Structures are given as C-alpha cells and as structure tokens.
C-alpha cells in the first residue's frame, strides 16, 4: 500500500549485487553462530542509542524516546499517528512533508527528531478549529488548489510560511517562494490563487 511503498522508498538506496550478497553472507554467518553475542559482530560504534526529546505538536506536549535516525516526519506519522504530513521523495526535493518548526517552514524528512528537543511543531492536523477549516485550507478548496491531494498538506503549511514571511506581493513572487513544493497534478494556478487570497485578507 502507499504507506508501505513509501517506506520501502525511504530505505531504498541503490544496493549493489555485491553488497546484497555480502549482507546475505553476514546474515548466514550470524545464523550459524547462535552463541555469538550480537554486539560482538558489529563495530562498537555501530549502535544508535535512543534519545529522549520533548516536543510540542499542535499545542500538545509530548516526551518521546527516538532513535537518532528518525526524522520528524517519521515520528509524526508513525509514533504520533499524524499521517497528514506526507512522505513524498524523502530527500528534501518535493516539499510534501513541509511543517512549521518554531514558526518556520522546513522539510521534516531531512530533520532529525533527535536534534529538535524542545521544538514547537505545527502540522496540517493542527490547523482546523472546532471543525472549521483554517482560511488557507478553505481557500485551497475554493480555488481548487489540488487534484490528487498528496502534496496539499505540504503546500498549505508552506503557504502559511510564505504568507508569514511576506513574500506574497504578486502571483510571480508567490510562485517563486512556493517553488519548494512540487505538485505533480499541476494545480499551481489554484495554489497561487489560494495563497494570494488569504494573504490579501490577512
């Protein structure tokens, strides 16, 4: 399913046949030596020690134990059950995972949770207010700033950053300052209209 395939993509570097064979050989060797303690077969430094971090997500405080390798994106989706933030490319190129950290838009896929103790995080889930859409969410609906919807939460969070930064003087300016968010459906005119509309009203 989508979740699984994106997970496979995330851990999917191109592995050479040689490396795959080596990995298999290692697994066989381990299996053949059941009494060998696992730690003795890995290098002393080849261990991630978990780290405790405190984070506020959409106003709610959390204390979490994270593997240093976990991105904020993975923590949001898998630990905190907030799947509104999407995993697109998982390499900082598409913007689908955009969130606000301490008020600034960033890509959560390239952000290690272990490095963000004390962060104040806003995600798409925190925008609605008592069942009412946030004005930018409503504007995306009104201006048809989406088609398939996969990039939309990232577009909206990025749009909030764009408005807060004040880069909304013209459609061209919005286009330039929203260029970190890719929309494969090509809903760009609607996205720009939605951001411009809310910027004018706010």
């Amino acid at each position: 399913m989508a979740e699984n395939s994106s997970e496979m993509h995330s851990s999917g570097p191109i592995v050479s046949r040689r490396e795959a064979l080596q990995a298999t050989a290692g697994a066989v060797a381990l299996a053949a030596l059941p009494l060998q303690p696992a730690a003795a077969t890995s290098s002393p430094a080849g261990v991630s020690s978990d780290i405790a971090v405190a984070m506020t997500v959409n106003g709610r405080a959390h204390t979490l134990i994270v593997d240093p390798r976990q991105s904020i994106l993975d923590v949001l989706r898998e630990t905190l059950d907030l799947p509104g933030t999407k995993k697109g490319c998982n390499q900082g190129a598409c913007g689908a995972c955009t969130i606000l950290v301490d008020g600034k838009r960033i890509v959560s896929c390239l952000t290690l949770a272990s490095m963000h103790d004390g962060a104040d995080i806003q995600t798409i889930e925190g925008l609605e207010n008592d069942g009412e859409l946030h004005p930018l969410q409503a504007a995306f609906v009104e201006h048809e700033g989406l088609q398939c919807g996969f990039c939309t939460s990232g577009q909206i969070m990025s749009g909030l950053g764009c408005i807060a930064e004040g880069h909304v003087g013209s459609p061209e300016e919005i286009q330039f300052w929203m260029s970190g968010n890719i929309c494969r459906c090509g809903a760009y005119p609607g996205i720009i209209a939605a951001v411009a509309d809310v910027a004018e009203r706010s």
Partner: protein
Amino acid sequence: MFPFTLEKAGSTQVAIAAAASGARYIAGGTTLVDLMRDEVERPERLIDINRLPLGDIRVEGEDLIIGALARMAEVAADENVKRLQPLIAESLIEGASPQLRNMASMGGNLLQRVRCPYFRMLDAGCNKRTPGSGCAAIEGLNAGHAILGTSDHCVATHPSDVAVALVALDATMRVQGPQGERSFPVEELFRLPGDTPDLEHTLLPGELIVEIRVPSGPHARSARYLKVRDRASYEFALVSAAAVLAIEDGVIREARIAAGGVGTRPWRLRACEAALGGRKPDRQAFEEAAQLATEGVRPLHHNAFKVVLLPRTIVRALEMAGEVA
C-alpha cells in the same frame, strides 16, 4: 541509514574535541542526513553544533561578519546584508528552496557535497565516494558537469551559489580547530579534484568554520548574480555568474567575476577581470572579456553547451551589474 551516536555540543571547545576524535559536525543536516539515508555517508558519530553561539550577523567597521550557523534565509533577509552586500542576498535566494534555506547553515552550505548523480549511486564508479572506483560521469550522463578544473578522476561541479558570490567578493573565513584559530580566503577552502577527488576542502581534521567576513567597498553595491538553469527556481545552476563592477568617471576601475555550474569549485575569472580594467562598461568590453572565461575548458559529451553559455551569462551579469553601478 547506518546507526550513529548523536552528541550535542554545549561549547565550541567540546565540539572541536569531538570532531578531532572522529565525530562529524552536523548543523542544518540538509546535505548530510540526505546522504546518510542513501548510505553514501556513514558517520558513526555526529556532533550537533546548533546550540553554539555562531549564528550572529553583524557589521564590524567596514566588514560584514556572518556567523557560520546563520541560516541561509536569515542571511538573505538581514538588513545589513541587503544594504552592504546585496550580491550575497541575491545568490542565497537563488539557491535551494525556502524550506531548505530556513534549515541550511552558511558553513554547511560551503561544505555541501556534490550533486553528481553517480556520487549517490552506490553501484556506480565514483572516485569521490569510493577512491579508485572510477568516474561514471565521464562516460555517462554529464550535461550538468564541469568544464573547468576537471581531472580524469572527477568532473563534478561545486553546487553552492553563495560560494560563488563570496569568492567574487574576496570573502575570508575564520576557523577554529585543535591547533587554534586561522583565517583564509573562502576561495582557498575548495580543492581541485586532481587525483584525490575524495578530498574536497582544505579544513584540517576537527576544524570548525566559525564565521565568514566580507570586506566592504565601492564595488559591493554594483554587484549581481545571474543563475541560468533548467527551471526558473529551485534548481541547480547550469551556469551562474557573479559580477561586481566599480565604475568611476564612466570607466571600470575594478571588476570581479566568478562563475558557478562550470567548475569543480567556485570559479574566479581573473583574466576576464583584468581585461575590463580601464575599459568603458559597454557590451563590446563585456563580450571581449567574457571570451577569456573559456580558456582551458574540457567539455564532456553532453555539456559543450556550457562553453557557449558561460561567456553569455557573464556578459549578461556584467550588464546587470552595470545597471546598478
């Protein structure tokens, strides 16, 4: 991603000691985390330097000082930067995306690794990633690669935009390391690939970039950055040029030109600069000077267009700089 341990540095001394004993510095992480996920980078220890007090942007006398941990977006939006060194703000805004600019530090920007696709393909030859494994780009898809400063071992371009501006502006950098502190021109940070493309910069083990110093002068306000690329924003340069002009009484007193997207490091073009001294800032002077930029080029199968595009980009950047002079 391979496992690693993460330490947080409370002081510069602690950070340097950790790095001197094998830890890798991490700030914004936009290059390193990405490459670690691809298993191109496999550090066993990271030292998080984000809490060090190295994020200030200030003016000292005539110089602009940019802390190594200042984020690209902060530097680009800073009033002193825009007033004293608009070229730096312009080149920063042309790089990466708004999100990445909020994350990436200035020190990390200078030390970012190449975007050659073969560097990231673990089953392709790459002397930078795996010394001695060959260079798949030389016979591969190389439209984005360098035409200047290449060797038979590596043809990757240095991807930074702001580094091109800093090199044109004669910026210097201050670093601290286990042996103490030193300063040197930003241009000297970058090595040519030669037969050791795995060695990209001249920092000694454990050295930490502390700040970047940009000297001011009459030239600084008439400076522009032009980036030519496959799409209008959020893309690496095919060719870029930083052009700086000091014009007095209708004559060019001093010109400085550096190019990106064409060299294995940010490429200062001193022959072009020398050809402009004493000339009137007109199209003919710009074109004659720009022709000198392609001396010694070594085009590959797919990037010979850069030999034509480079002088044209320089001419246009000089015209843009002349308009604000």
